[in-house]
Each structure stands twice: as C-alpha cells, then as structure tokens.
C-alpha cells in the first residue's frame, strides 16, 4: 500500500463510453442499470460468435471530435479522439485551462490496443496483394516501399504514446508526461505516477487519461482465445450471475483530474487514498469492509464464485460492477470504476449491477434490481486483468473537508 503524504482529490472526470458522451450519461445508465452494449456493427468484420460489443456510437464519436483540433485528426485513432474529449470534460469540471493557468500540469496516460497494426491499415493492400497461393509478400513490400501505398501517418496513429502526444498538442500542454501500457497495470501505473508527482510537488495538477479500442479482427480473436471475452454467441454481460455466459468487450476513454486536496477550496471532496497492484491476485492486499466495492467480473460463474470467496473475507457492505454497462474496457478498466466509485460517494447511492439477475453468491451484498441510497464514506475498486494482473484502489468521501 502506498500511504499518501498529502491527500489526493479527484477534482474532475470525463468519459466517452458505450453509455454515451460524458460522465452524466454513464451515471444515468448506471442508476437505471441500462447497458450501453449493443449489436456489433463494424465495416471490418461480422460475427455471430461475438454478436455484441460496448461500442461507441457514431453520434458520440462526432461529439467527441468537436473537442479535437482539426489539424490533429489525421494523427488520431478513434480511441485518441475519445481520450481527448474525455480529458476536456474532466478539465471543464475542474475548471482548469492548462494554456491559461499558472499551475504546473502533468499528463499520465494508459493506452489500450491489443494487437498491432490494426487490420484496416493494410486492408486494401492485403486484398490487392493476395494471389491464389496466398499473400505475395514481395508485392506487398514493393507496393509499400516503392509505390508509397501505405498511409505515411500510420506510424503516428500506431504510436504507443499517441494518446499523450495528441492530448498534449490539443491542450498546448507542456510538462511532465508518461505513457503506459496497458489494461489494469497501465491504469495503475498512470494513477500511481500521477499521485507521486503531486505528492513530490513536481506538478500541481495531474491529468490521468486512459483510452482504447479493440474493434479489430486480430484483437477480438486474441481477446477471445485469451479468455478475455466470450465467443459463444453470448449477447449479454452478466457480472456475478449464475447464468452468465462470459465477458463482452468494450471501447472508450476515461479521464480524471487529480489535485492535492490541500490546494482545493473547501467543499465535498473524494480522495484517492491508496493504490495497490500485484501480478498475482492471491497476493493483492484488499481493503476491509468498504462501504461500496466496485469490482470487475469476468461473467464466468465459476470464476465469479472463486472471486466471491475472496470478497467474503473483506466483507464489503455493497458490491457493484460496471462491465454490464460498458463492456470490458481494454483501455480504461480501472479508471471507469474509479470514476463510478467517486460518483457513488458523491451521490451516496449504489447502482445495481447491470445484467445481474441470479447472483452466484446470495450471501454477498451484490447490488440488484435498483439503485439504492446509502451512507457511503469509503469506497474501493478491485480490477483483475485477463493476463492475471490485479489492482485495488481506496477512495474516501470528505463531505465538508477543507
């Protein structure tokens, strides 16, 4: 556990997810247990085995584009566009403009992206260079190297730090910056580095941003065979449900603005108090008796039952989960839960687990059916990645803190 030497508060948040544009849309979906997962609709692929996905709608994407400078769009994947928009939302809530602020900003990013390159970058070339015996690799090399048939900006849209690159340019942000990969470990590294930079006094504002998209045939196939998503025709994400058929993927971006609590005006604050991670879930320190636990679920009944055995030992007062709303996010799996934990503390309310009908464990307080008012002081977030990495976060609500 990393005890904070000065409390770190979340002063802004934003997101672009399958539930729509903005954290208000996410919170509304959470309160109504209304899933953003929809029929998979892609110009790149079709599938009956993976029929649904936590996809960003065209309208949400268009709204996100409005936050990105036109001259940066050629460098930006959809995930980067969503990330930039989520960050702008978070800055708006925190009432900060980096370009006009005397404060020192740091940018800490985690990017998804399971496979590389995205197939659409080579889509036309592959079709063109395909012969009866298979791919003519020499023809492909000639088309690329002699005829310049490849998008010259592909290397930039493929960068593992494209997200902070475009986000910093969009905001004209100069300062400390880190890019991490990926999933749960990348989210933890970004949050941890941000908190340490604030505590060390190197920055006054830490912008934490995560984004990713896996809507690509290669990525979906690897995620399916790696056990991260189901490929059995399952259309519903049912966390902690005895009849669950597995996980469903999801795209999107989440941003948080972190400040030292002491630097903020008096008022209700939610602080991020401790961050833990481990490559082995069995050795991850877990919080005792949080008022609410946002816990990721793979929607595999046996796996969820095993997880519940661990949860019994820490006796959370209520348990909720976000994956039924958004799908399992490759880019921001932890940030979305930190955002929801903050909202539940601020609203003093625990949303029901979207998709849960028949709990795998009746003795655990898995939130069901409707959003429930509650007195919440301490929240926790618990995430497990498909490769085994796990992370846990502790948040505290300070109703009248200065």
């Amino acid at each position: 556990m990393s005890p904070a030497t000065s409390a770190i508060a979340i002063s802004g948040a934003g997101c672009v997810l399958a539930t729509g544009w903005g954290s208000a849309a996410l919170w509304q979906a959470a309160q109504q247990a209304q899933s953003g997962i929809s029929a998979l609709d892609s110009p790149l692929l079709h599938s009956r085995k993976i029929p649904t996905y936590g996809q960003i709608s065209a309208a949400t994407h268009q709204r996100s584009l409005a936050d990105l400078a036109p001259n940066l769009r050629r460098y930006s994947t959809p995930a980067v566009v969503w990330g930039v928009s989520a960050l702008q939302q978070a800055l708006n809530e925190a009432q900060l403009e980096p370009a006009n602020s005397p404060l020192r900003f740091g940018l800490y990013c985690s990017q998804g992206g399971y496979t590389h390159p995205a197939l659409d970058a080579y889509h036309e070339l592959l079709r063109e260079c395909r012969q009866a015996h298979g791919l003519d690799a020499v023809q492909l090399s000639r088309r690329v190297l002699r005829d310049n048939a490849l998008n010259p900006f592909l290397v930039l849209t493929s960068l593992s730090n494209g997200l902070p690159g475009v986000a910093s340019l969009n905001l004209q942000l100069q300062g400390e910056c880190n890019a991490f990969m990926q999933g749960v470990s990348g989210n933890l590294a970004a949050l941890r580095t941000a908190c340490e930079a604030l505590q060390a006094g190197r920055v006054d504002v830490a912008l934490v941003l995560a984004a990713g998209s896996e809507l690509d045939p290669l990525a979906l196939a690897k995620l399916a065979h790696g056990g991260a998503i189901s490929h059995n025709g399952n259309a519903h994400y049912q966390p902690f449900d005895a009849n669950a058929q597995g996980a469903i993927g999801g795209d999107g971006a989440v941003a948080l603005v972190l400040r030292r609590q002491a630097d903020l005006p008096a008022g209700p604050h939610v602080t991020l108090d401790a961050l833990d991670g481990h490559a082995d879930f069995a050795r991850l320190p877990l919080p005792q008796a949080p008022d609410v636990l946002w816990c990721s679920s793979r929607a595999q009944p046996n796996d969820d039952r095993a997880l519940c055995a661990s949860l019994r030992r820490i006796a959370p007062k209520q348990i909720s989960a976000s994956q039924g709303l958004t799908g399992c996010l490759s880019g921001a799996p932890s940030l979305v839960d930190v955002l929801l934990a903050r909202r539940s503390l601020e609203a003093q309310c625990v949303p029901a687990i979207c998709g849960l009908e028949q709990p795998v464990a009746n003795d655990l307080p898995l939130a069901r059916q409707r959003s429930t008012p509650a007195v919440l002081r301490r929240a926790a977030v618990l995430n497990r990645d498909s490769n085994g990495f796990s992370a846990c976060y502790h948040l505290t609500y300070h109703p009248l803190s200065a």
Partner: protein
Amino acid sequence: MLAREVHVTGYGLVAPMALNAQALFTRLCEEQSCIRAHPLFVELGFANTAAGYLDSQQWQAIYAALEQPCGGQPRQAALAQYVAEQALQHAQFDRQSLAKPRSGLFIGANKYCASAQELDVVSQYFDAHGRVDLDAYLDHPSSQREPFAWRVDQQTQHLADYLGVGQHIATHADACAAGTMAIGSAYRAIADGHLDIALCGATELMANELPYYMFSSLGALCAKGDWPADTQSRPFMRDRCGFVLSEGAAMLVLESREHAERRQAVSLGRVLGYANLCEAEKMTSSSRDGSKYALCMQAALADAGLTPGEIDQVNLHGTSTAVNDSCEALALEQVFADHLAQLQLTANKSAVGHSLAGSGAIEAVLSLQSIAHGVQLPTLNYHADGAQYPHLNLHAQVQTQTVNTVLSNSFGFGGINSAIVLGRA
C-alpha cells in the same frame, strides 16, 4: 524529505551481435558495427536491407541460458527474462531478491507487431464486401496461438510473476524515450523513498517488416540501399538521411544507497538526475531551434544539482535524421555554451541502430561502462570533413578520457523528451 542516493548495482544487455554489455562495449571500442543486411528484408526484396537484429544463434543462446524455461511465453518475455537474469547476477542478487514490498519493475516497450503472414491469414477470411468473417477466422489455428503474445505489457507481467515483484509494476510506452523514462521513473521512486530497489530498462523487438514499412513510409529510415549497411546511420553528418531500425534490450538494477550498503553491494555508478517533458510542438519533431530539447536537458541537470560545466559527456539521441540531429545540436549549444568545446559527445545508434524503446536503456548501460573505463565511445560513420556541426566533439575513433558524469538523451515521437544524468559511484 531529502532525495535519497540511487546507485546502479547491476546491468544486463542484449543487442544485435552482442549477448551482454561487455560484448557490446568491446565491439564499439573496436569500432565494429552491429548493423548488417537483415535476411528477412533480403527475402522480401527490400531495396535497403540494413538493420540491427537478433539472429537465430542469439535466440538459441538466450533460450538455452534461461535459468528457468519460459514455455508458453512470447519471445519478448524470454528476452526480458534473459536480460533480467544477467542484471540480477551482475548485482549479486538471486531470483527471489526482488520479491519484497519495496521493490519495483519498470520496463519500457512499444508494440509487438503481427507479421505480414499473420495478416495474410486474416485476409483469407475477407468476404465479398471486404469484411472479415470473424467466426471462421476464430477457428483458424493461427488465431488461437499465443493469445497474449502481442500484449505490450506481457514481458513485464512475466517478469513480475517470475521475480515475485508485487506493487510497483509499470510498462513504459513512451516511444523512443521509453527506456530512459523507465530508468528515470525507477530512480524517482527510489529517490523519493517509495522503493528501495528496482529493475528497470526496456525491451524492443521491432526489426521486422511491418515496423519497417511504417517508419519508411514516414521517411524516417535511411533509404540509401546502395550504401553499405554499416555506414548508413551517420549522426550529425551533412549527408545523414535517417535511422537504421534495430532491436535489443537492457536492464539496470537500481538501489538506494542504504539498501546497497546494507548488503555490501558494489556500486557501478549513480543516477544523479532525470527529467521527462512533453513539448506540445509536433508529433514527429521538436522545435527547430532546439529549445525544447534544451529545456529537458536543463531540467535533468537541475534535478541532478549539476551545472553544465560539471557534465563530462553527453550520450546523444543522435538518430541520424535531419531534424533530430539539428535540434539536438542547437540544444547542446544552448545548454553547454562555452563548455561545449570540452564536452565529449557520442552517438551510439550509428553502430547499434535505433532500437526505439530499447535505445535509452542500452545507451545508459554504455554510458556507465564509459564512466567505468574512462572511454568516449566512437560515433561510427562520423568524419570531421563531412560534419554539419564540426564544433561538436564527436569522434569516429575511441578516445580515452576520464568520465565522471554523463547526460544521456532520449527523444520520442509524440513530443516526449527525456534525459538522465549518470555519474561515478
């Protein structure tokens, strides 16, 4: 709290034609390049086949030497394990030494690419509308192979499992700056008192066709196929025209002074300072006047509490691209001014190639060796008569001189700059 001293107590390295740090250092001292024609690029008919790459003999040696087989893991995980084992052995640690709460793992890496053949398999499932029949592809054996092989953090996860590192685990993905930023982040975590010990560095395996296509399409690679492979990267020369793609890995063991002293470890040097800054200038290049690179170097010096005159050597980013070298040369003038004439400079990428994330970690190890041996490594393919910046103190031959402090630069696409200051123990 005062920052704690951070010492280097071990390192490991694999580079093209070198299976350890000493082999690479000796090779460079003997002015031998690691760049040659890549067999894959020859097979594919590239006009320019130059690259730094780990060959099959190296891979056999790597797998054969692993203390514990890493079956089922992708090759970047095997490479990471091999280099980590070297570094830990050098530091006189055993495999369990990092399995404690105040240890960390900071590994730089970029992306692991599918091959053209793998893309081809997918392309067999295009329907008449150009959409992939994913259900049919899911049944193809190649789609089922090594599902985690392309995860960028897979080598980090493997090392964390293998070494039992728990809390501080990070995969730095800051393009060409990732290796230096991984070391710098580990340094900060120890200096600030969060950790006592860290394994840090980078792995990169990008010397294959699809990364080549991307960098070539952008015009970043040397395209002079008629130049001998080992002469193509020409940092700070008038005729420089791009970098040579390479790969490799390097890792350092960092410890707080107290931790190193408690176990009577031999210090191989210190990390004295570090800076990482995004510059919001362009995605592919810095401010043409060099001011943004200069800002980063100055911040690293300030963090180290050193004046420019106290730096003996700069290990340059020196990619041999027109813009990068120009910006770096101008930045050196701004930072070092009158001291520039006495400042030793070296650019290792002309000999080793540009291993992207790996480069900063490899160059940090070479810098520590330069301090230990009192050597200014040669900048291969540099000649005073063709130099664009003849006032820079670069040499094509090895020079023997006392080196107490080195500033090592790594600048990345995406506008991320980093610099680290290394010093004698």
